[in-house]
Every structure is written in C-alpha cells, then in structure tokens.
C-alpha cells in the first residue's frame, strides 16, 4: 500500500529561499536548511536537538522561548523584527517568522522558523533617510540641515505637526517625508488642500457623506479622514480653513471620531495629522480668523521651512539639480549657466522660493538653444525685480522702504515696505509687482500689462483681486 504524501523535511526546507528550520514540540531543532546554517554559523548536525533560541540568539523577546510557546499554543503565526548574533560575532537584522506545524490529524507537532535577513533592506532605508536627495529635498545650508535633523524626530511620534513656511518652500515634500519615515508609511498619505474648496464641499471631502445627505449625494462617500485611516492626513493651507470646519476638525482631533455629513453614527479613525500653512497662524488667532484651541492642538510639533533667500549656498545646488532634471526630460545637453546668468540667479530674491526657481530653470532650459543658458534666456523680470540684499545695498533698500514713492493707485502703506515683502506671501509679492509696474508706466494699464507679459484683461483681473481698482 502506498504511503500518504510525506515529503522529506530537509528537501522541503532547501526549497525555501530564506534561512529556515523546523522545531519539535519542545522547540528543539529537528532540521535546518543550508541558508540557516550559513546565517547562524552552526552546521545542522551539530545543533540537532538543541533549543532553537540557543542557536538563533535573537533579541525579539524570545530568549526563553516565549514566542515559540505563544505560537505553539495559539496557532497564530508571529512575525517580529529584530536581530540575531551568529557564531562569527556578527549581528544580523532579521524578520523572525514563527508558524505552527500540525500533523495530518490536526495535532500541533512543532514550529516552522524562518529568519529573513533584512540587513540589506535596512541599510538602503538608512541611506535613504540620511540622504534626503532621493526625496528631492536638497539643502546644505545650516537652516535646512536643522530641518532635516528634525525629520526623524517628527516621524517617530504620532503627535500633530505644523509646518510653516512661505509658498514654494517644500512644505508638502517635508510632510510626505515625515510620513514615509514614520511607522505609518505602509498606510495612506492623503493630502487635502483646505484653501481650494468651499466650506460645504470641504466638509464632505474631509468627513465624507451618506447617501441622500444633500442633492447629488447619490452614494456614501468615505471622506479623506476615513481613507487615511492608520495613515497620515496632510492638511495643507490650514490657515484658509473656514471657522465652522475648524470646530469639527478640533473635535475629531480630540475624540478620534467623526460623523459624516448627514450621518448619524460616528466613525472612529486612527489618523496622524500634519498641517501646513504659509500664513502666520498666531496673527490669525489674534485676528480671530483661526481658532486658538485648534492652533494649540495642531502646533504640538512645529517646523519652519526657511525661504530660499535665507538658505545661503543652496541656490546653486538647486539650480544644478533642476537643470539636470529638466534637460534630461527635454533631451537637451545644456551644461550650465554663463557666469552673468548665474550671478543674476544667485542675486535674485525668489519670492516664490523653490517653485519659482524651478520654473525659471524650466523656462530657460526650454528656450536655450546652446550649451549654456545666458542672461537673455532667463525670464525678463529677473533683471527688473528686486535682487537679493547685499551688505552694501541693504541700507539703500531700507531707506527706500521708509520713503515710498507716491503711488497712482490706492496702496495701503504696510504693503509698500520691502521688509514686509520679504516675509509676505506670493499674493503680496504679485500685488507689489503690479504696483511697481503701474508706477513705472504712470498708471497706464496697456503698457503695464505688456511689461508684465499679460493681457489687459488679466491685469484687470489681478488688480481687482488685489483691490487695486479705484
């Protein structure tokens, strides 16, 4: 009579592409594959009948065989991360998988142990964490190095993070890196722009809605909070969030529960919040535009991204990086900038920060037909806009700021100072540019629009937006 299917355990283990072994019901080694022999440094024949943990020597909390017992009795497989110390005195990072083995009748007869060597993977992760360039985060200035030093600390915890910084400084990138480096990295990272949607829509977007909650709600929608469960929700432009929604957000942060629009039952979520804004939130709190309690709730951990003009030396690296990236994409062979063009780029203030720098490089790379980008191939406004402050002309700039020239249009005084523009948003800078251009052309809108490279309609729209119309 033919025996039932009983494969040879040694052959079976050799087919497993990881170090593996089988233990009996007393957790003593029955057989090991060659990979396990190589990893531990002990030949299978020498360690047969020895307690598995005496040979593996892990730091996974199994030094008295607790994990073995747990798996053996519960039947639930366990997978833990840790390291082992082999007989060559080498510490190897492993993922320790323990699973139960049962006989044909269903009785537990032993354990299957697999030790996955993850040292190579971890090394890659470490290199990645130390070199943020792979995340397209470039910064060698002291201020950026401080930000980079903060990232692992911010990633470790589940506390809310508030990222502040001017527009284009890379708040989104930092938020993503924090998520990627956190234990939540395997779960979703969801970004919601709080300034992009009207109040009703934003509420539905964040918290979801139930079918029939409002006209057009034809089905249940889970909402970003639900979608980001166990992951990270990144609320960008939090300073633009409407006040009523701020109350609801605060209650979610406190209770970890929310009710979808039109719903009756509350849903529990485990979401880590990262918020970002280019607005001065403390000033908004003073002006009653932002809830103080929400501000303190979000501002548990805070990191400020410096504007590009304060990142001495980084501009050159960023220019090289973007030029390299853009020329590769365009299939061009541009090798760099001429000295004059480079000087102009280094002297420029970059009110739009890295986003603006990237756009300048993209513009120049597109129109450049030679090996090097010249001054003429840079956007024309570069030679017109205020340049980066130098020690010598700082006085002059400040003096200019004290006595603003009469303006042909209504301009609140505080908007006219250069020191203000240094810390103002893109909108303020654009507004100031329009004012400067209007001054230059004595208020003639046709010439101003042509100077700015816009149509008259666009200039009118912008003037209306910035309340520059009489």
């Amino acid at each position: 009579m033919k025996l039932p299917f009983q494969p040879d355990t040694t052959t079976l283990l050799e087919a497993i592409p990881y170090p593996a072994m089988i233990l009996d019901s007393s957790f003593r080694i029955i057989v090991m594959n060659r990979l396990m022999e190589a990893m531990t440094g002990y030949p299978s024949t020498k360690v047969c009948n020895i307690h598995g943990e005496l040979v593996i020597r892990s730091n996974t909390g199994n030094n008295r065989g607790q994990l073995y017992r747990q798996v053996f009795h519960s039947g639930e497989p366990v997978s833990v991360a840790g390291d082992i110390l082999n007989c060559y005195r080498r510490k190897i990072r492993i993922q320790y998988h323990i699973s139960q083995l049962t006989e044909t009748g269903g009785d537990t007869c032993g354990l299957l142990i697999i030790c996955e060597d993850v040292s190579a993977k971890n090394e890659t992760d470490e290199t990645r964490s130390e070199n943020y360039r792979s995340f397209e985060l470039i910064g060698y200035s002291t201020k950026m190095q401080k930000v980079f030093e903060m990232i692992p600390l911010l990633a470790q915890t589940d506390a809310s993070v508030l990222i502040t910084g001017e527009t284009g400084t890379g708040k989104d990138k930092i938020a993503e890196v924090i998520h990627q480096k956190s234990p939540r990295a395997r779960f979703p990272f969801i970004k919601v722009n709080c300034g992009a949607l009207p109040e009703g829509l934003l509420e539905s977007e964040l918290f979801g809605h139930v079918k029939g909650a409002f006209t057009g709600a034809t089905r249940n929608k889970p909402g970003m909070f639900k979608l980001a469960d166990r992951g990270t929700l990144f609320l960008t432009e939090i300073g633009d969030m409407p006040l009523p929604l701020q109350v609801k957000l605060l209650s979610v942060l406190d209770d970890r529960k929310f009710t979808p629009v039109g719903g009756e039952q509350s849903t529990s979520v485990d979401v880590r919040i990262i918020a970002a804004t280019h607005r001065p939130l403390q000033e908004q709190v003073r002006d009653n535009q932002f809830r103080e309690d929400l501000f303190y709730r979000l501002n548990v951990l805070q990191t400020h991204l410096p504007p590009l003009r304060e990142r001495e030396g980084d501009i050159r690296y960023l220019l090289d990086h973007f030029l390299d990236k853009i020329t590769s994409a365009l299939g061009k062979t541009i090798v760099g900038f001429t000295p004059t063009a480079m000087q102009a780029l280094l002297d420029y203030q970059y009110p739009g920060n890295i986003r603006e720098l990237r756009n300048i490089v993209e513009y120049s790379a597109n129109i450049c037909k030679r090996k090097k980008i010249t001054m003429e191939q840079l956007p024309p406004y570069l030679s017109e806009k205020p340049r980066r402050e130098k020690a010598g002309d700082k006085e002059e700039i400040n003096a200019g700021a004290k006595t603003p020239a009469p303006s042909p249009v209504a301009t609140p005084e505080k908007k006219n100072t250069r020191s203000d523009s240094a810390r103002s948003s893109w909108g303020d800078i654009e507004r100031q540019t329009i004012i400067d251009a209007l001054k230059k052309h004595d208020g003639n809108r046709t010439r101003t629009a042509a100077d700015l490279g816009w149509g008259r309609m666009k200039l009118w729209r912008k003037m209306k937006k910035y309340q520059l119309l009489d």
Partner: protein
Amino acid sequence: MRKLLMPIQGDFIAPRFDLATEILIVNFENGTVQGDPKTIIMERPSDEELCQMVVKENVTDVVCGGIEELHYNFLVWKKVAVCDSVIGGWKKVLEKVLDNTLSQGDIILFGDEQLLTL
C-alpha cells in the same frame, strides 16, 4: 587565581552577552573553585555595563554565548580570555573550564538538556 565570568540564563549559558541579566562569577585555581560562586542580577541588560563589570571585577576569563565583535575585541584588548559561542548548561560548562577543556564554539550536550530550564 583566575576569575571567571559567565552570563547565564536559567540553567544555560545565556544565548547573548548583550541581553544577559544574570551573571555568575567564579574564582578558581588549579582546577578547583575557590570560595563561593557569586551571582549578580543586573538591573537591565547592557553589553557596555557588562564589559565595565569585567574590567572592574578584574575578571580573567569570560565564557559566553553570542557576543558582538566589538565587545569581544574590547575584552581581548583588556587581556581577558574570552571563550564565546558556547552552548550548554552552565554547570557542565564550568566543569569543562576547570578541566581546561573548553574551547570556542563548543556545544556541551550530555543528554540531560531536557531537565534544564532556559
């Protein structure tokens, strides 16, 4: 007189030097134990503290399970004779030390391991 330090766990030599909390210190001379063996329970496992203890207690011999290269080299540099990667019940291992027959990587099996607790 020589002084032996063995990190132990239950009846066995502790699998890892850096995770051991129970330390046995034995004075011996000419194959016999001198005085009573001393057991030290450490507040928490620490390879650094254990190395310091070896130096502070003027230990001449260390017998242990797995040990990291760094700590092994440190102890050797401090002129301590280290016999590592030893697996077995500590009583049998001690007998082998006294007989001067223990060597690095030895697995001391006497068939009574089932009676020992880890």
